């Protein structure tokens, strides 16, 4: 089936998502082989998805997490205080309880992760074969359409990839991520 540029553009997003049926996919690929404009649109669109999907584009202001937790703490403590105030008549008792509560809430908080960007996978089969690139930070399934640098790929087990500090691709490994 021969298709026009306009039809390719209309489906380019679905193509990148891997959501076009095999017949249309074959037609698109045939068109793409001979059309510089559509190749440019496809490459550029893939680059947009890749650049904006990078963790560095989701930076939060320094100290955001700390300030958020502090505000939550104030809020929780406020609710606790009003409850305790109803229970305990003496102001001294309220302060004592408040101090104990503060200490326990601080100790039970989970520590800051080493990297705010790190997204360890959950239940990734350790022997699953994945691909990584030397300069990248992410490991992918070999069939992932979001691998950009295909020239320097290495195939290793997921276990090794994680040991080397690679994190799972948010697209092809999504089922293992808590997002």
């Amino acid at each position, binding site marked *: 089936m021969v298709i026009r540029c306009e039809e390719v553009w209309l489906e380019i997003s679905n193509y990148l998502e891997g959501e076009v049926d095999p017949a249309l996919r074959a037609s698109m690929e045939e068109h793409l082989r001979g059309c510089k404009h559509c190749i440019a649109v496809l*490459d550029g669109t893939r*680059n947009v998805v890749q650049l904006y999907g990078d963790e560095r584009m989701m930076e939060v202001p320094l100290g955001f997490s700390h*300030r*958020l937790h502090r505000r939550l703490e104030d809020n929780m403590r406020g609710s606790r205080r009003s409850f305790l105030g109803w229970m305990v008549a003496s102001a001294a008792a309220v302060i004592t309880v408040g101090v104990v509560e503060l200490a326990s809430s601080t100790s039970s908080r989970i520590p800051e992760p080493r990297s705010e960007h790190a997204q360890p996978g959950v239940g990734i089969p350790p022997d699953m074969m994945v691909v990584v690139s030397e300069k990248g930070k992410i490991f992918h399934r070999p069939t992932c359409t979001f691998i950009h640098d295909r020239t320097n790929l290495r195939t290793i087990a997921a276990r090794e990839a994680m040991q080397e500090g690679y994190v799972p691709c948010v697209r092809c490994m999504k089922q293992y991520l808590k997002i």
Partner: protein
Amino acid sequence: MPDERSTLGDGSQQPSEETLIRRIRDGEHDLFYQLIRPYERRVYAAAFAVLHNEADAEDAAQEAVLKAFKHIGQFRAEAKFSTWLTQITLNEARMRKRKQHAHIMEPIVDHQDDEGNYTPRDFADWREIPSETLERKEVREKLAQALDSLGDKYREVFVMRDMHHLSIEETAKTLGISTASVKTRLLRARLMLRDLLAPGFDANWTSRLSFAKGTKPW
């Protein structure tokens, strides 16, 4: 009995989200920190996508998290906690934006029909994106500027899908629109961004790109 723990990549275990929510409702309020930890960046980014301002986004994000804590009893298990939290954040951010811009008319682009086809304006070749590119602050700023220049409905879908990595279905649920609308808006957002950015990547950022506030070339 349902499995109440999940295994992390490093082999350690932590309570499942469902268990955390139940225990928080039962009074273990400190577990709320653990519940929201994986979603903090997403909450901030969702607020920022609407408000485009760090201080306002942070304030809205904090307020949304406080609301989620206060109303955790109303959370229904059939929804995903992350979707529910993002919805609260978007509502909070949109409400603030409405208050801030009550006197400003919406850009014309927001009234365009979703179904209208989008034709790329530029066919600049843009094959290589060295990963180091994003280390450059000016590149990240240009990308942020380009994103800011999209109409709200395109930007929100793009941020949910391509930056938060929600599925098409989750994006639709979070924004309260159909999956067909998500796909159409996503396509347009991606193509518009490509049109804005491809010439810049192909040549010189500062001379080729101009994202004057309020100008939308499509």
